């Protein structure tokens, strides 16, 4: 049928037919392979592996090398202490705690007290400090002659200076508690420390001076002294301390009173609650809370601002004379009120200003406290929820933080209707901001309180004016309720701490900078909006990404090592098996030597000598691996050499190369395929061992690298099993399925074993 003379297409014809024939043979051996149960199982697992390898770039959500979970996800508040309030006292965590550090001289003293007034009118203090006398969490009653009527919250606790102690220890204030009650009375009392040094020993309260007002209080009385939590106030209540400060105004208590004829703003002198002045507010709407401006001693006279309806009135602190009034476009947002940050009351500020926003408006305005002119400060995308400012220590303009429903903006140059420098938007999961922002100057952090009862601490980097979330206190069991009264230096732990009341009737002191709780367990929605299907490892890297990314790398190592092994093994086997002679002899002893040296120590020595780069590792694994395969192939080569078809081709004048190519290799190939499967598994196992022992570079994402973090700390495997389970399981499966495949190939390699 084949006449010698047809054209070249015959050549192609042969090749095509030979290809077709090769396919049919492949199909037949595939059937044998598939029939063996091992082959089938191995095949499917490998198919999954290959699929994952191909998809791995897509499935890697975070880049495995340098991704680290954002701090917001990794840090949790570190609950330093947890004080539960006995119900006998009648006060409950949900009521309003006021924090007042018992301030002695300039540096902070060592005991802090929380003040709370029980419905029965007793004032309680909760000690918190390291001294033996005021053990942490001890609750004691400061003043038990009842405050008549129900308390109007919040209670103000502020440091006041009294003339009396001017000479004995100048600049030392003592803490006064100001309480307003529904019985129309205001009470004020000083906290006395038996030992004389505030903060040590058991505090108690002298008789509280009180005065009754002619009407009902709309809000709790306000003091023109800075709330204690903000450190050393500038103002002294009872005396003017000329040597120390030139313009000292007496401490005044302001309260908004409502009686049949309308709303009045009354002012009393704090010392003995002597009535000073009262002003009638012209409007009929409910006025806002009074805001005091004038902490800084440089300013002659402070002012009290109050807004009613759409106008803001400012009255002189001492005389109550109206300084100015400004009408606004809408009613003031009473939740924010008028925020007069201290920074803007300092001398450097070009002109003292206060910030306010209108009810559910997304604009922030500022009002000049000299003449009451209003201009727009900032336009936020959402409704403004809260305003705070840095204290300006770093010089003016200290920047402003404005929070709308789900953003916090750090704004710098206010005067020129600034653009927002940096913004941090709260992730949807955590709800929106509901309350004012707390600012802690010492660590440049602000605290946001969200509708899902979360506290998020955001740290400010002044250099780039960027906001980066620090940690989030997701309600661990108890939801955070009511107020949280800002920052204080916990002398016990010398760390910035946060005081929080929880719904389960406890007060928690949280450490400011939070603790790193990585490795994170698998979560679908972490605070930062990321998701970690397999959680993260101690370093905060997402296990899923590392796991997926290591598929191609492991294949790479496996295949390259196997290629190396097969190349050398076949070469060595043919030299020793077929050519024999002296070189064959010497080579055989060499491979025997390498084979006899125990694998692992050799690996370790080579790895440490050659240094831990990936290519060195591949080289080492090849060196250690090839004798195993070579020995079997030597056997095959030797048996092939004496086969008659080899003898035939020798007698018909075939060269050595021809014989190697035509006879030796094809007969070795099936076994080579078998060994390939086995040694890929071996190579991956090899590199995993090396990485586990720390000899190989762990910056390459392989399963071994993922396990290497375990070597130093086995305990972690029990606490964070999600770290080791994926790599361990995949490694075992990978090696297992390769062994299965090799078992299947074994069927193909010598089918005669099975059939008759």
């Amino acid at each position: 049928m084949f006449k010698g003379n047809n054209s070249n297409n015959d050549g192609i014809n042969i090749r095509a037919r030979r290809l077709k024939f090769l396919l049919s043979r492949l199909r037949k051996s595939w059937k044998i392979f598939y029939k063996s149960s091992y082959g089938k199982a191995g095949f499917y697992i490998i198919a999954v592996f290959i699929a994952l390898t191909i998809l791995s770039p897509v499935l890697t959500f975070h880049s495995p090398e340098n991704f680290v979970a954002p701090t917001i996800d990794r840090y949790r508040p570190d609950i330093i202490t947890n004080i539960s309030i006995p119900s006998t006292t009648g006060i409950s965590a949900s009521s309003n705690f006021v924090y007042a550090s018992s301030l002695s001289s300039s540096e902070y003293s060592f005991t802090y007290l929380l003040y709370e007034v029980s419905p029965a009118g007793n004032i309680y203090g909760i000690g918190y400090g390291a001294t033996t006398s005021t053990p942490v969490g001890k609750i004691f009653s400061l003043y038990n002659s009842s405050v008549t009527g129900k308390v109007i919250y919040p209670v103000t606790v502020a440091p006041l200076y009294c003339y009396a102690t001017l000479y004995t220890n100048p600049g030392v204030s003592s803490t006064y508690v100001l309480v307003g009650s529904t019985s129309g009375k205001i009470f004020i009392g000083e906290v006395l420390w038996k030992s004389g040094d505030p903060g040590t020993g058991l505090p108690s309260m002298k008789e509280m001076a009180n005065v009754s007002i002619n009407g009902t209080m709309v809000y709790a009385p306000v003091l023109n002294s800075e709330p204690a939590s903000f450190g050393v106030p500038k103002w002294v209540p009872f005396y003017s301390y000329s040597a120390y400060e030139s313009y000292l105004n007496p401490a005044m208590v302001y309260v908004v009173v409502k009686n049949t004829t309308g709303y009045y703003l009354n002012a009393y002198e704090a010392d003995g609650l002597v009535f000073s002045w009262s002003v009638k507010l012209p409007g009929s709407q409910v006025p806002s809370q009074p805001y005091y401006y004038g902490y800084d001693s440089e300013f002659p006279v402070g002012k009290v601002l109050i807004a009613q309806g759409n106008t803001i009135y400012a009255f002189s602190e001492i005389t109550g004379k109206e300084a100015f009034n400004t009408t606004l476009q809408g009613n003031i947002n009473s939740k924010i009120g008028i925020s007069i940050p201290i920074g803007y009351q300092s001398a450097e500020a070009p002109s003292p200003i206060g910030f306010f926003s209108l009810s559910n408006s997304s604009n922030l305005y500022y009002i000049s406290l000299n003449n009451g002119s209003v201009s727009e400060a900032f336009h936020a995308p959402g409704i403004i929820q809260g305003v705070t400012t840095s204290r300006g220590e770093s010089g003016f303009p200290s920047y402003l933080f404005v929070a709308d429903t789900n953003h916090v903006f750090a704004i710098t140059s206010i005067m020129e209707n600034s653009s927002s420098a940096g913004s941090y938007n709260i992730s949807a999961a955590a709800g929106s901001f509901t309350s004012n922002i707390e600012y802690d100057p010492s660590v440049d952090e602000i605290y946001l309180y969200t509708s899902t009862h979360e506290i998020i601490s955001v740290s400010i980097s002044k250099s780039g004016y960027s906001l980066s979330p620090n940690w989030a206190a997701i309600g661990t069991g108890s939801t955070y309720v009511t107020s949280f009264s800002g920052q204080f230096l916990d002398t016990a732990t010398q760390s910035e701490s946060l005081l929080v009341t929880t719904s389960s009737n406890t007060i928690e002191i949280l450490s400011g900078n939070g603790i790193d709780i990585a490795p994170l367990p698998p979560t679908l929605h972490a605070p930062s909006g990321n998701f970690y299907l397999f959680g993260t490892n101690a370093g905060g890297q997402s296990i899923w990404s590392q796991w997926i990314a290591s598929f191609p790398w492991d294949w790479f190592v496996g295949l390259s090592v196997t290629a190396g092994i097969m190349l050398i093994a076949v070469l060595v086997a043919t030299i020793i098996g077929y050519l024999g002679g002296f070189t064959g002899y010497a080579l055989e002893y060499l491979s025997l030597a390498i084979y006899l040296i125990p694998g692992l120590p050799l690996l370790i020595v080579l790895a440490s000598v050659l240094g831990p780069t990936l290519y060195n590792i591949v080289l080492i694994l090849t060196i250690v691996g090839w004798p195993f395969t070579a020995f079997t192939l030597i056997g095959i080569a030797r048996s092939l050499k004496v086969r008659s078809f080899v003898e035939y081709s020798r007698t018909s004048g075939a060269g050595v190369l021809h014989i190697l190519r035509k006879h030796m290799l094809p007969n070795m190939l099936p076994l080579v395929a078998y060994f390939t499967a086995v040694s890929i598994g071996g190579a991956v196992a090899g590199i995993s061992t090396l990485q586990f022992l720390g000899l190989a570079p762990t910056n390459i994402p392989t399963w071994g690298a993922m396990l290497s973090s375990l070597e130093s700390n086995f305990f972690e495997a029990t606490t964070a099993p999600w770290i080791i389970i994926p790599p361990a399981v995949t490694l075992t499966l990978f090696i297992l399925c390769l062994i299965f495949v090799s078992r299947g190939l074994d069927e193909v390699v010598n089918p005669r074993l099975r059939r008759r």
Partner: protein
Amino acid sequence: MEEVKEVESKEFTGNSVMSIKNLSVNFKVAEGTVNALDRVSLDLAYGETIGIVGESGSGKSTFANAMIALLPENAVISGDIVFEGERLPYLSNVGRKEKKRDVKILDAKLRAIRWKEISMIFQGAMNSFNPAYTIGKQLKQVFQIHTDFDLDQINKKMKEVVIKAGLNPSVLASYPHELSGGMKQRAVIALALALNPKMVIADEPTTGLDVVVQAKLISTLKKLRASGDLKSLVIISHDLGVVSQLADRVAVLYAGRLMEIGSVMDIYLNSRNPYTLALLENYPSMRKARERVLGIPGTPPDLLNPPKGCRFAERCKFADSICTQVDPPVVQISPGHFSACHFADKVNVKTAEKKYSATNDILSSHSSGGLPLIKTVDLTKFFGLRSSAAGSIFVQAGKKSVAHAVEKLNIEIKEGEIYAIVGESGSGKTTVGRLLLKSIEPTAGKLFFNIGEDNVLELSNKTLSNEKIREFRSMSQLIMQDPYDSLNPKMSVFDTVAEPIEALKLEKDPSRIEAMVSQSLESAGLSPASNYIFRFPHELSGGERQRVGVARALSVPSVKFLLADEPISMMDISLRAHFLNNILELRQNRKLSIVYITHDMASARYVSDRMLIMYLGMPVEEGETESVITNPLHPYTKALIQAVPEPNPTWKPERTGIIGEIGSIVNVPKGCRFYDRCIFRKDICKDEAPPKREESGHWYLCHFSQSELIVNSPEEMERDVTGIKTPQGSSINVSGR
């Protein structure tokens, strides 16, 4: 069960040792089920010997294994085998899942029977001895396992059995590799007779042995049967001659079916079954070597899906349409003689003669051949241990360490001539073949090869240029013995046949290579070439593989010299004739000169023009085939011719005039190498090398002329045996009786 003392004429006593009723065996294989045996029934009486004859793949071994219930797990057996009235438990019944307990009972029963009641000589058992143990140790194990004799009882029994098998008791101390083929086979027989079982099954006991050794073994078996040690025997072989000697009744098996069964006389002299007749026709025996034999066309059917009707139909000359539809009935021709054939009455020896042998063209006389293609002058080849540097250190001075493989060979092979080299295994004929092909270098002497226009290559000089060697290679080719091993399993037929072309870089263009390949395939008898080209060795039958080997040798157009090294020893009888005819055709139309190396005298006579007989490396006789065969001169040639089995019971193996077995080529006697085994030997033969003598047209190597060759009497034989340990039985079997 009484002990029956055998008498020369064996009459059958009462019930049968074993009766088999339509036994059929199917093997569950990857591709389906192979129907190895189909409804075979047979009865073996006490003291009776049954011969089962059939080609390879006819199910003989399956039948043997079934008898001793040694079939593998994937065998499904139906029908039953009754041994001494008790149904022989099979390992796996038809489709019934064995419970663990049943299997255990089964095993216990089987173990009781095996070797005590039925023992077996497996196929190729002689080379499955454990090389690490002496024969005695392996024999002792049989006793230790099956009997509770104590040690000296066992030793006595062992000596007794070994002597019965015709071995020298000293064999018990030697290791398997130290014994020759014949002696190992006798040891196996001793093993089988150890517990003097009631029935022995011998599966191909004589294959793989040389003709002379085979003849001796047959006579030993006959003696054992006569002496009653071997009670009833089932002998299974593809060699009709061997079976005709031993069996009382013969069953002919083909593709799993019983074709014919009857007494030895019925089958051999008056067979009424086409297949048996075809076998008898094609059996290469000396008497018929002259007539042209056509061989049985086609190949045995594939038992995966056996054909309907008679399985021999498509190869049978008498076949008719009915044969391929209806299973042949079992026709009784005479009491005890049945034949499964539709035309049993019409078929007989005379009618078959016309069908299977082309009586008209008796083999024409061979062409005398032209110029001498190959000439050797004193070609010798010694394998010395001391040749290598290491060898010269490690071999002791006095030690005899040189194997005189070939000594002073002077032959001339002309173009177009078929030259046969005949000799037992170990006589150096393969070494001669290798020398002629220059795959090994001769130690001394010259070898010339005429590459045309009488420029003659002196192959034996070492400084031959590669170019010249390549030219010689392109003119000489080799056909190998083992069809299974000579083809690379991973290369398709096309690549195998095209290999010499590529090896010698004669041709690059694939289409021309394909043309050459398909042409040589067709000339080797594999047509149409297209459906063989892309098949693989494991998809071909034995015969086809050997033809691929031939095609491979012919693919190089410039081939002038072919060396065939025992090409047909592994092939079935039906395929041998075809192969030999193919060789004759090739010599005719391609003017090839062929060296045909064999140990089978009959096929040498059938195909060769001139013949050389070799013994222990020495050429002992050479001449025209016809003159060597018709009047052999050298005692060795005489013995060889006598030893060739005849497919009829009248042939007496005892008459071969030779002693013991071939010696070793290392300690070669000084004088005539045939001294140890020559029944005409005199003292002179021992010391002086015999000269060449010329008589009736060809020469032979002996001190005495034909007339002077007188057979020594037994006493003389005894006297001359000095020192040289001739490993032959204690009673020297002097021929002529």
